[in-house]
């Protein structure tokens, strides 16, 4: 399957959210796609899934059997197993077969006892399991997981990891977006980062790449550089720049461009944005012993969060991360 020069925008005069995306998906591929919030990841995922057609460019060779799992299943007025039965039939299964498969997947995700609950009454994690099972009923050849892990408990996350591996082993293709940089890190056959509407080849290191974000008012559009400029809402220009160049850039802005007003400066790293959310997730999930055990070691590595000042050195940033993490974990990681 191949995406060639795929572009997408939300309206005739809107800017292209996706500029020119090329992507090759072979049988057995497990592909990670990263990028900041609003970089167009979900749009790209829906185009790969075939739920939307691209505004320009082509998608060829998409397999017959495609399934998509969104980050959250909205409250639908169906009971869980009724919803699954509908999708079994839509996938071409007979009523009995759909029922049988739905039940066995519900059992595997330990959600069997919730099958008679309305989806709207389920907890977010259990509803998410229903969304996942919907996608697995017909053994998809292309499985799109758009932050599908987000509200799952540790067991559910693990099961979904296994399912993704099984799908590729069966010869299917899996494309996923997730906040956890460790997610399927050993199994992924390729990783890309979506930035400014383009897909860049990425390695695991890319997800750690620190960046300084500078928000400016009255900045020229397009931004002449250095750094990458992007217009946000309310006429705010956001500049992304590597930390090494950030002091120089700020100095230039403040001394040479009198009209430009600096709204905020902060450091993020690929993981940092995600760490904030992961931490919240971990707090919610702490009642579940299993969840704590598994998420905490990752936490200590990823505990850095967005910071309010830019231009700090790496050492200082790591220091500030220490109070956020539990000391025993930290000492175990760095003996």
């Amino acid at each position, binding site marked *: 399957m191949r995406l060639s020069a795929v572009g997408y925008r939300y309206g005739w005069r809107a800017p292209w959210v996706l500029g020119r995306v090329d992507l090759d998906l072979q049988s057995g591929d497990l592909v990670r796609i990263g990028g900041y919030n609003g970089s167009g990841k979900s749009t790209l995922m829906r185009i790969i899934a075939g739920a939307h057609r691209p505004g320009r460019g082509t998608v060829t060779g998409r397999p017959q059997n495609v399934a998509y799992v969104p980050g959250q299943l909205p409250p*639908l007025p169906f009971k869980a197993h009724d919803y699954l039965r509908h999708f079994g039939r839509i996938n071409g299964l007979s009523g009995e077969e759909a029922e049988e498969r739905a039940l066995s997947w519900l059992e595997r995700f330990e959600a069997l006892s919730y099958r008679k609950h309305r989806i709207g009454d389920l907890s977010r994690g259990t509803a998410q399991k229903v*969304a996942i099972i919907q996608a697995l009923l017909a053994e998809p050849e292309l499985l799109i997981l758009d932050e599908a892990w987000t509200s799952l408990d540790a067991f559910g996350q693990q099961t979904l990891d296994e399912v993704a591996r099984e799908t590729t082993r069966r010869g299917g293709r899996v494309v996923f977006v997730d906040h956890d940089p460790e997610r399927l890190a050993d199994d992924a056959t390729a990783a890309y980062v979506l930035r400014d509407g383009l897909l860049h080849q990425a390695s695991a290191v890319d997800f750690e790449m620190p960046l300084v974000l500078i928000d400016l008012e009255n900045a020229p559009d397009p931004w002449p550089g250095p750094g990458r400029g992007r217009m946000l809402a309310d006429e705010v220009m956001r500049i992304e720049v590597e930390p090494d160049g950030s002091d120089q850039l700020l100095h230039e802005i403040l001394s040479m461009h009198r009209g430009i007003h600096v709204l905020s400066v902060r450091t993020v790293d690929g993981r940092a944005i995600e760490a904030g959310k992961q931490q919240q997730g971990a707090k919610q999930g702490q009642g579940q012993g299993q969840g704590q055990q598994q998420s905490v070691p990752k936490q200590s590595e990823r505990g850095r969060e967005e910071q309010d000042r830019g231009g700090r050195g790496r050492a200082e940033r790591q220091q500030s991360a220490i109070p956020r993490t539990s000391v025993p974990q930290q000492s175990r990681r760095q003996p």
Partner: protein
Amino acid sequence: MTTRDAAVARYYVVLLARSQRWLPPVLFYAIALAIDSAAGDSAADAFAYSAAFLLPVSAWLTRAILTTEPAEAAAITATVTGPVRARLAALSAATGYGLLCALVGAIVAGATGALPGGGSTVLTGLSTELVCVLLGTAAGALSAPPLVPAAGWGVLLAGLLALGLLVARFSPAAMGIRALTTANGAAPHYPLAALPIALVVVAVAWAASTAAAVRRQ
């Protein structure tokens, strides 16, 4: 239509039924019919009356079915079936609801009054009801997201389209209703052009709605 297409349409039928958003348009229609059957007109007038209400009711039902599925759930459905089939299945489901209302209207019309003109009245009445249901789905499809994303403008447009299609001189709905109301006890002149024109209008409206849904949910 394959069994898989039927399964998608069925999913939308059940989705609307469970969402209870069919209730306002169906109640509105039921009240309209109740008022009419109390008056005791001829069957031709009763057919015309129920057909006139079917148009906005079926536009309302169509808008309800096209707006009731949340975006993430719609993306799931569109992935499995393809966006074109998903949209056409939803529109077919809405047509099914409209036809059910039409059937009730026809029964009420048949039961209310004398049946002057016999078979010709029934034929013209049923055809006019069908035309009104179809045009209603056209109006609903054109005033639903993604063509009209804002709910307020969508409702306004659906209302104006329904009104326009009822009063415009060359509207197939108006042709049928005129034929029924001007019969005056005789057999009405069956409006030959009404159904073909309605089908063309519906095809254009459904195609526009589907084309928009393919690009954007």
